[in-house]
């Protein structure tokens, strides 16, 4: 804790000890959420970690207004998504190249369970979705298809999330039928 607090004596104004403890709790419990959201967009571990760390750094600056757990998670999820989308748009070509290299050279254990072609088709179908539908699909996968949780993260009514999820599934079905007729 002391080491954690000592590191703050730089560009940022130090939070008091209670706030630092709360922030560390949020960091511990939400790092996977932020990383998975970024990974769902970027599909690259390094880029995803970089974006998630950026989101946490921004959250730290505004942590006095984000002490509530649910509010923090929602804010972090939206911030991570936005940062990841920005990164994905600006580095689309580079990200695609690194993804192909990473998949070919060192496939992760998760990717190992799926064939590269199949996962690539799936990602392509998700990328083809409008952004509003895409974030719902990714968050549903992360939050184990808990509509209420996704609605909380996106600050949307549950009905809106359900309708967007339905549209996203329909779009996914169409894309995957086109991409892989024998899927």
């Amino acid at each position, binding site marked *: 804790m002391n080491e954690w607090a000592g590191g703050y004596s730089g560009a940022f104004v130090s939070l008091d000890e209670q706030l630092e403890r709360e922030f560390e709790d949020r960091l511990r419990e939400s790092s996977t959420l932020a990383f998975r959201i970024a990974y769902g967009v970027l599909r690259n571990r390094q880029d995803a970690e970089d974006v998630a760390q950026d989101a946490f750094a921004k959250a730290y600056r505004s942590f006095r207004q984000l002490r509530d757990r649910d509010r923090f998670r929602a804010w972090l999820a939206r911030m991570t998504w936005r940062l990841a989308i920005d990164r994905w748009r600006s580095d689309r070509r580079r990200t695609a190249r690194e993804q192909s290299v990473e998949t070919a050279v060192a496939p992760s254990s*998760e990717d190992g369970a799926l064939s590269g072609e199949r996962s690539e088709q*799936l990602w392509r179908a998700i990328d083809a979705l409008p952004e509003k539908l895409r974030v719902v699909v990714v968050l549903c*996968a992360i939050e184990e298809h808990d509509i209420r949780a996704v609605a909380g993260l996106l600050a949307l009514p549950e009905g809106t999330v359900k309708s967007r999820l339905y549209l996203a*599934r329909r779009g996914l*079905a169409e894309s995957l039928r086109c991409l892989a007729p024998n*899927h």
Partner: protein
Amino acid sequence: MSGTKSLNDTDAGVVAAAEADLDRLLAVEPSAEFAAKVRARIAAGVPPRGWPWGRMVLTLATASALIIAFTLRDGLHVGESGGPMMTSPQQDTVPRSAPAVSGPPIAPNTTTVIPVRRSPRAGAPRVAAEPEIIIDPSFAEAIRRLALSAPYVSLDATADSTSASISGEPAALSIADPLDVPELVLKPADQSGGQ
């Protein structure tokens, strides 16, 4: 999977398989150093990648260099010892004919002056090349109203003589030609009454 109820069986199967794949693909964990990297990033204040800090630093450096260059040029000059020294306030122009003496000021229109560049005191406002003319705003407004109300009145003669006397140049005297006015002749009115 409640949303798949409206899809047909084939599509529902495809979507269910896709979502299962997506669940597996997104079941990733950040590295063990993730929290430490976040702490380091906060401590160092590292901006997000792609932030144009390089351009900002370059712009700030250029602006600083320009400010320093102007400041040095205006306020400092190198002394004999080689180091910069502050200069005392100097007069921008000195008379050529009369050396600087402590006496009554010499009228500017009677002495030929040559400009001599002096380094003004650092921080002092730069003296403009042209003399500053301060006019009372009420006078300026009155002159403007006069000019607008009588646009066809020529004030050239007055202006020329005034400016000539101010500038010290002799005014060119002009002799007006005698007017050629025909002599008036009285005639008796005709019967028609002059019409």
